[in-house]
């Protein structure tokens, strides 16, 4: 099957999922339920695309297929920033009330974190993947413990307010962030369109890419920023979904046989939308909300992650 046929199939499945989610078994007032559902679907599509896009480009500049921004603890950074803001400024401060300021601070912190991470882990020597993974886990745990520590000290009322911000889910979408997210995604795609060819060349490695006239280190910097902004967007909207990026990027690599980023980003985004919208449909109508999608995704993703690790270690050994 040709790649274009596969992409059309994925698109069809994605549309079916969206229609099912939008129209299946609407009880009560259509005028009430339908807009609510559409809001959620929009959030899922934005999140799905943002996570898929950021994972694919992140894996290109780090030259591996296992580490993702989430696995390296990038979305924990979002929680750190929010907790710090509540801890030092409080829920009534401008840093919380002004959503753009809040969002901007989170993005800035995540970009800085990503740059530091890259500088020390991926730039200098080629570390084995297990080392990087271990570092990612330790950073994740460290940030998690730090957040918990601060949360214990916070005033309980403040903590409740913070919690509603940190545990955003698809049923509790931060609707006020929807428009800014769509804007960011549009800009990210506009930029992506300009650098798609460069991304393909960069997958040949630093030296080959430089030989072909790519300003490699500068591009890496820009792509790290792009990746962080996308992860920040999806985390702010619906909270962290650790393993989604890993699953959809690798499924796309396996399913679509090409080196072209334009196709993989498209493919991974579609798979991501199918997983989120289709998954949420199952959760709401089949499991009747007895579980949440992130639990399912992290469960399947975790197993797939172990499978990839084993495969990688066999290939390396």
């Amino acid at each position, binding site marked *: 099957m040709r790649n274009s046929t596969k992409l059309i199939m994925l698109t069809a499945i994605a549309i079916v999922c969206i229609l099912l989610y939008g129209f299946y078994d609407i009880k009560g007032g259509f005028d009430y339920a339908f807009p609510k559902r559409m809001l959620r679907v929009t959030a899922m599509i934005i999140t799905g695309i943002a996570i898929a896009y950021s994972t694919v480009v992140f894996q290109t500049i780090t030259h591996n297929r296992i580490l993702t921004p989430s696995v390296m603890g990038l979305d924990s950074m979002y929680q750190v920033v929010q907790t710090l803001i509540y801890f030092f400024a409080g829920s009534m401060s401008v840093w919380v009330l002004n959503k753009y300021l809040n969002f901007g601070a989170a993005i800035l912190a995540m970009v800085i974190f990503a740059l530091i991470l890259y500088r020390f882990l991926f730039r200098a020597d080629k570390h084995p993947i297990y080392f990087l993974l271990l570092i990612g886990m330790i950073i994740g745990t460290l940030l998690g413990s730090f957040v918990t520590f601060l949360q214990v000290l916070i005033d309980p009322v403040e903590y409740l307010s913070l919690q509603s911000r940190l545990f955003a889910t698809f049923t509790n979408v931060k609707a006020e962030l929807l428009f800014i997210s769509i804007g960011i995604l549009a800009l990210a795609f506009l930029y992506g369109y300009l650098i798609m*060819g460069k991304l393909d060349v960069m997958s040949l490695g630093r030296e080959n890419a430089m030989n*072909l006239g790519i300003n490699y280190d500068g591009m890496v910097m820009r792509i790290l920023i792009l990746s962080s902004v996308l992860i920040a967007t999806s985390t702010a909207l619906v909270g962290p979904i650790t393993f989604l990026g890993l699953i959809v990027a690798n499924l796309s690599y396996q399913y679509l046989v090409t080196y072209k980023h334009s196709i993989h980003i498209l493919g991974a985004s579609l798979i991501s939308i199918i997983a989120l919208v289709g998954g949420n449909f199952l959760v709401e109508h089949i499991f009747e909300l007895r579980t949440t999608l992130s639990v399912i995704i992290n469960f399947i993703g975790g197993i797939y992650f172990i499978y990839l690790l084993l495969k990688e270690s066999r290939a390396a050994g």
Partner: protein
Amino acid sequence: MIEIKGLTKQFGKKPVVEDVTVTIEPGTITSFIGPNGAGKSTLLSMVSRLLEADTGEVLLDQNNVKKWKSSDFAKRVSILKQANYLNVRLTVRELVSFGRYPYSKGRLSAADEKFVDQAIEYMNLADMENKYLDELSGGQKQRAFIAMVIAQDTDYILLDEPLNNLDMKHSVQIMKILRKLVDELGKTVVIVLHDINFASVYSDRIVALKDGRLMKNGPTSEIINSDVLREIYDMEIPIQEQNGCRICVYFNSHT
């Protein structure tokens, strides 16, 4: 013309290249030779901008290579390093097509396709152009990478030990192709070589390095003689003339 002026590079406290000044003559094959750790690859990396020099400068057409725009530089100078592990799955033709990136920016024109065809033809890869690189032997893969550099069609082609992993037949084949690139198309080739006989037979000029310092720089005939080689390699290397080629017989030297 590429001029290397007083180039120095340290890794940590250890100087790897020290105060090297060499001019690469256009229209020649220049070989970099020397023992392991002499700094040959590092020097080549600095000339091609992969590494930044600590002090000194490299001039391409009188302009410091740092001042060149990356995309323009890639149309003048190409480099191929030794280790070429790819994280992506590519066919031979896809890889070679990447060589046209500085011109096409990813959208191959008919003229670009012609360059790709030619490069594939040059490296005898036509019958395997649609195979994936991970299906090929080390030597075939190496030839595919060289084909990419040829497709890049630069005046200067820098190759870091391109004969690694290659059997004798393909080594000779590649050296002959490089010779053709220089003699017929007027290219300039700079190549790091381990086997001094390849340097002796196929190159016009030799640059000999040892411990990061420039030992000798001159026409091949001046470098390939026992006295000079003893200085570079610390071993006795008798030289025999065969059909006008000077062959270094270092296997049976009793030192």
